[in-house]
């Protein structure tokens, strides 16, 4: 792209806010009642996180991988791609995150959750996951978007990415390799929402910033504890 400095974010926005949110409406209607299964999957992650067990890390990774794969195919590739030619690349990114979760979490069992101590990372991670699962579907209501346009964990990209970041924040060891794609998505989504002048544009950005700050803090503390 020549003279790239002359482009603004609005030059890349190729659909109207009305079309963007209508896409969620048609998508939700088309897949109903699979949203209930996605929410059940989210509740399952919470239960596994809090109750533990030998297979909890693998099971959480499997649920998250399934959510990322579903969003990649059913939303990004089948729906979003009809109004945004970049969606196929986003879908590839979501599929890659699913593969990373399968490899790191399911096969190598590296996604052990922090259950013994209630530190800042665990509290923030749980808070972020709970927000993505229970509050995110409702955030459109105060700004006039109907519930049928709700963005739900395991169905829509934003709450799926934020919920995953919440889980990764609450893991026993920070898994940076699993955080990169969700963080990139938060930036892309915030830019899209900001360009559409959506009042909730800051949410993915705040979630990403919170995760970065707390993850860095946790990593520094862990390093200090080991060297001390």
């Amino acid at each position, binding site marked *: 792209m*020549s*003279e790239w400095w*002359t482009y603004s974010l*609005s*030059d890349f*926005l*190729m*659909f*109207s806010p009305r*079309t963007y949110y*209508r*896409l969620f409406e*048609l998508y939700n209607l088309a897949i109903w009642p699979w949203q209930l299964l996605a929410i059940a999957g989210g509740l399952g992650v919470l239960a596994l996180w809090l109750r533990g067990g030998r297979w909890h890390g693998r099971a959480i990774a499997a649920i998250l991988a399934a959510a990322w794969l579903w969003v990649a195919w059913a939303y990004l590739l089948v*729906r979003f791609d*009809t*109004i*945004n*030619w970049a969606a196929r690349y986003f879908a590839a990114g979501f599929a890659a995150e699913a593969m990373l979760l399968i490899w790191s979490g399911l096969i190598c069992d590296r996604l052990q959750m922090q259950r013994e101590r209630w530190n800042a990372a665990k509290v923030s991670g749980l808070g972020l996951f709970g927000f993505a699962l229970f509050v995110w579907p409702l955030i459109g209501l105060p700004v006039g978007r109907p519930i049928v346009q709700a963005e739900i964990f395991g169905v829509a990209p934003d709450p799926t990415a934020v919920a995953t970041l919440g889980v990764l924040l609450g893991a026993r060891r920070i898994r940076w390799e699993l955080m990169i794609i969700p963080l990139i998505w938060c930036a892309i989504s915030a830019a899209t929402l900001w360009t559409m002048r959506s009042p909730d544009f800051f949410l993915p950005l705040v979630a990403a910033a919170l995760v970065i700050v707390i993850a860095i803090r946790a990593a520094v503390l862990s390093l200090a504890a080991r060297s001390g």
Partner: protein
Amino acid sequence: MIDLDRRTFLHCVTTAGAAALFPRSLSAKPAAVLTKPVPSSGEALPLVGLGSWITFNVGNDVAARDACATVMQAFFAAGGRLIDSSPMYGSSQQVIGYGLAKLGHPAELFSADKVWISSGSRGPGQIEASRGAWGVRRFDLLQVHNLLNWEAHLPKLLAMKAAGRLRYVGITTSEGRRHREFERVMRTQPLDFIQVTYNLLDREVESRLLPLAHERGIAVIINRPFRQGDLVRRLERYPLPAWASEINCTSWAQFALKFIISHPAVTCVIPATTRTDHVQENLGAASDPLPDAAMRERMIAYVETL
């Protein structure tokens, strides 16, 4: 500034004449719409066309596609002809094709699309896919979008034109990008059309590109007349000046469009909209009287004070 009498460029299509072009499926009678000739052929084009950036990118939403078809119907009913799109515009081409099929492929359509791909060898395939999306036998105009690999695409478009598979060839840019290279292509290639950004606030093309287009007999399509709506939203905070009635403007949108189409080098402006009343308002701007040079200066001066 080109010092030409606009009346030498304008040909008024009478209501009766436009009605003769009209498909039976459309019941509304088109109003008189001012036209200008394409310099390379003399073909008359209405001064106002229809863009499809963002507005027609509605995906597979049937209700939204039907609404776009209604906009197209209003456009043809008001005397419009040129619809412009691009492979870059998401589903816009498919939505235009849906609308054209629904309207029974209006004979007065002037189809303007673009080739937008880095690979020169994949250009013909993209053009064929675009043609299939529109559902037309051939495009009237194909433009190299934003000069992307124009060295590879332009010879192929010219060959298509020579073979009778295309009527006109052009290039586009927007928001002032690559004007130096754009000018070079205008000077060296046998272009029928250029497409550039021009509006009350973005007037860079007045200095070189528009005079050059006039000098070389190249038709000019104007994109982003309202800065994607921002310009009109900004102007609508203020009352329309009383003297706007001297050029029969009833809205800021008409004020902005009349300014553009009154430039002697401009052939057609392509505002995009999702509303039928805006289509009628836009086509209504293609009517006499158009501002003369003094009025154009007054319009610029007034808008710059707001």
